[in-house]
C-alpha cells in the first residue's frame, strides 16, 4: 500500500502554529510536525492528548518507595537483626532518607526509560528526517492522505497562505 504525504516547510514558529491550526480546521490528517525546539502551544494546535507519563512516574515512585521500605525492615528486623546502640528494631524515621532517595531514583529512571521506549529512541537508531535542517532552523508539517477527497493543490495553497518556504510531495511504497 502506498502512502502519500505532503510536507510544508516553514521558517518561523508563528507560521507553523498557524499552519497546524489551519490544517486541523480543514479536517486533514496531520502525520507529524517536526520542529528544532519545543514550540509552545503546538500540542494544542495538533490536538495531542495530555501525556500519561506522570502516572508512570507516580506509580514508579510509590512502588520504589514501598519496596525499599520493605527491604529496610526485612534486613534490620527479620533477616539478620543487629542491635546498633540499643536503637529499636522499628527505626522508621531513620529509614525515611534512604526510602526517599530510592523513590526519586526509581521514579526518574523509570520515567526516562518509558519515554525512550514509547518514543522509539534507542542508541544508534537511524533518524528519519523529512528535511535535513529540522534540527537546525526548519519547521515541517507533514499531512497524510487518508481518503479520496485529499487534494494536493488545496493543501499546497493552505501551506503557502501560511508562508511556507517550500511544499514537497512524497509517496512512500511500504508503511513503516
Amino acid at each position, binding site marked *: 500500500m502506498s502512502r502519500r504525504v505532503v510536507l510544508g516547510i516553514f521558517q*518561523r514558529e508563528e507560521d507553523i502554529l498557524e499552519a497546524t491550526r489551519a490544517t486541523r480546521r480543514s479536517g486533514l490528517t496531520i502525520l507529524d510536525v517536526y520542529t528544532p525546539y*519545543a*514550540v509552545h502551544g503546538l500540542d494544542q494546535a495538533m490536538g495531542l492528548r495530555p501525556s500519561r*507519563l506522570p502516572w508512570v512516574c507516580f506509580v514508579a515512585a510509590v512502588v520504589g518507595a514501598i519496596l525499599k521500605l520493605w527491604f529496610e525492615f526485612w534486613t534490620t528486623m527479620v533477616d539478620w537483626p543487629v542491635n546498633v546502640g540499643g536503637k529499636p528494631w522499628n527505626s522508621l524515621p531513620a529509614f525515611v532518607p534512604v526510602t526517599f532517595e530510592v523513590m526519586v531514583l526509581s521514579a526518574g529512571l523509570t*520515567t526516562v526509560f518509558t519515554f525512550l521506549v514509547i518514543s522509539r529512541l534507542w*542508541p544508534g537508531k537511524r533518524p528519519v528526517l523529512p528535511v535535513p535542517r529540522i534540527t537546525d532552523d526548519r519547521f515541517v508539517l507533514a499531512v497524510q492522505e487518508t481518503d479520496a477527497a485529499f487534494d494536493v493543490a488545496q493543501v499546497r495553497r493552505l501551506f503557502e497562505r501560511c508562508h511556507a518556504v517550500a511544499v514537497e510531495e512524497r509517496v512512500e511504497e511500504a508503511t513503516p
Partner: protein
Amino acid sequence: MFEGGSVLRQPLIQGEKSLRQVTEDVCAALERRPSGLWWAAFLAAFAAFLVGALAVGYLVATGIGVWGLNRTVGWAVGITCFVFWIGIGHAGTLISAILFLLRQRWRTSVNRSAEAMTIFAVICAGIFPVIHLGRPWLAYWLFPYPNTRGPLWVNFRSPLVWDAFAIGTYFTISLVFWYLGLLPDLATVRDRAGRGWQRRIAGILSLGWNGSARTWHRYEVVYLLLAGLATPLVVSVHTIVSWDFATSVIPGWHTTIFPPYFVAGAIFSGLAMVLTLMIIARRTMRLEDYITLRHVEVMCKLVLATSGMVALAYGTEFFIALYSGSPYEQFAFLNRAAGPFGWSYWIMVACNVLIPQLLWIPRIRRSLAAVFGISVLINVGMWFERFVIIVTSLHRDYLPSSWSSYAPTPFEIAMLVGSFGLFFSLFLLFCRVLPVIAMAEVKGVLRDGRAPVRSPAVAPVPLEPVAEPLPAFHGAAQEVRS
C-alpha cells in the same frame, strides 16, 4: 511569558539572532581547532590532576597515616573537600531544575554548563569519602547486596549509609537530566557537516532524535517531571550531608540549623563557581551574546541572597550557643572565632559575608573583573567554612586531655589540588566536545519568528523612569520584518 517579545525589556539573547545563527555560534566552538589558550589551561589542569592522582596512589598503597589526622581530629581536608565539591554541584541543579520550575527563562543560556559542572563536582566529591575509607577497594560494602558474610546488611540507621544513597541518586539523576537536555542538541551536531568522528558519536548518542512534535510533547513532560524530582532531591542531598555532622554529639555539630544552613551554603558556593566558569567561558568561547551582563547580574543577586542566608546562619549559631547555656557549646563557638584556628574563621566571615556585600552596588555587578574576583573569593571562603566546621569542632571537644591540633600534610594539599585539576580538566573537555549552550532551549526564547507584544498594556512597564536607553530598535525591526 512573552518576555521574548516585549519591547520594554532587554532581550535575553543579544544581537537579534536567527535560529541558524544560534546553531552556528554554538557549534562553531566544537568545530574549530582548540586554541593555544585552551591547551595551556587543559595541560595545567591535567598536571594538577596528576599530582592528586599520585598522592592518592601513594595513599592507597601506604594507608591513611600519610594524612595529618589523629585520634581527635579524625576528619579534616578530605571531608572538607567532599562537602565543598558536593556544595558546588548544587547550583547546577538549582539552575536546571528549580529555576525551570519557577519559569526563569534566563536560565537557558547557562543551564547546560551548570549541569555539567554539577556532574563533574559530584565526581570530585565522590572520590573523597571513598579514599577516606582507608580500604577503598571495599567501597562496594556500602551497598546492601547479598554477600557471603551472612548476609550482613548495611545499617540503614546510619547517616553515612544515607549519604551513599543520596550521592548515588544525585549523580544518577543529574546525569540523566543532563543527557535528556542534550538529546536535541546532539541531533543538531549529528545533522551538521562536522568532523566525521564527532558526527558518528553524536549519531549514536542522539538516539535517532528527529524533532517530532509528538516526541517533543512527551519530552517536555519528562523534563518537567525530572525537574520536579531533582528539586527535593537537591535539598535532600545536602541535608543528608549535614546530618553526617548533626546526628553526632560533638558541640558545634549537634544543631538543628545544619540542614538549611548547609543547603544555602551549597547554593551560595555553587553559584559563585557558575559565575567563575561563565565569565571564563563567555570570553574564551566568544559567547558574549548568549551569556550577557544581564545573566551575570541576575546570578550576582542570587549570590547576594544566599550570602545573606549564610550570614544569618553564622549569627544564629552564635546566638543559640549563648542562649543554650551549655558551656561546651559556648566554648566551641568562642574557640572557633578566637581559638588557634580563628584565622580560618575570619577568612570565612570576610569572604562569605563581607565581600559579597559589594554586589549591592550595580556598578560592581556589571564589572566582570570585579564579579570574577568576588566569585573566586567566595569559594575560598566556602572551602574554609567547611574546614572551620569540621576541624575547629573536632580539635577541642569535651575532655581537655584529648585536645589536639591539626595541620594538613603535603598529601592532603596534593589531593585538594588534584580535585581542582580533575574538575577543570573535565570541564575543559566538555567545552570542546559538547554544545556548551542548550541550543534547543535558547532557540525557544529568541524573538525570531514570534509576534511581538503589540499592546503596551500587556508588556511589563517599569515603575521608575527608564534610566538606560531602551532597546527600542529590536522591536521596530521585528515589526518591519513581519
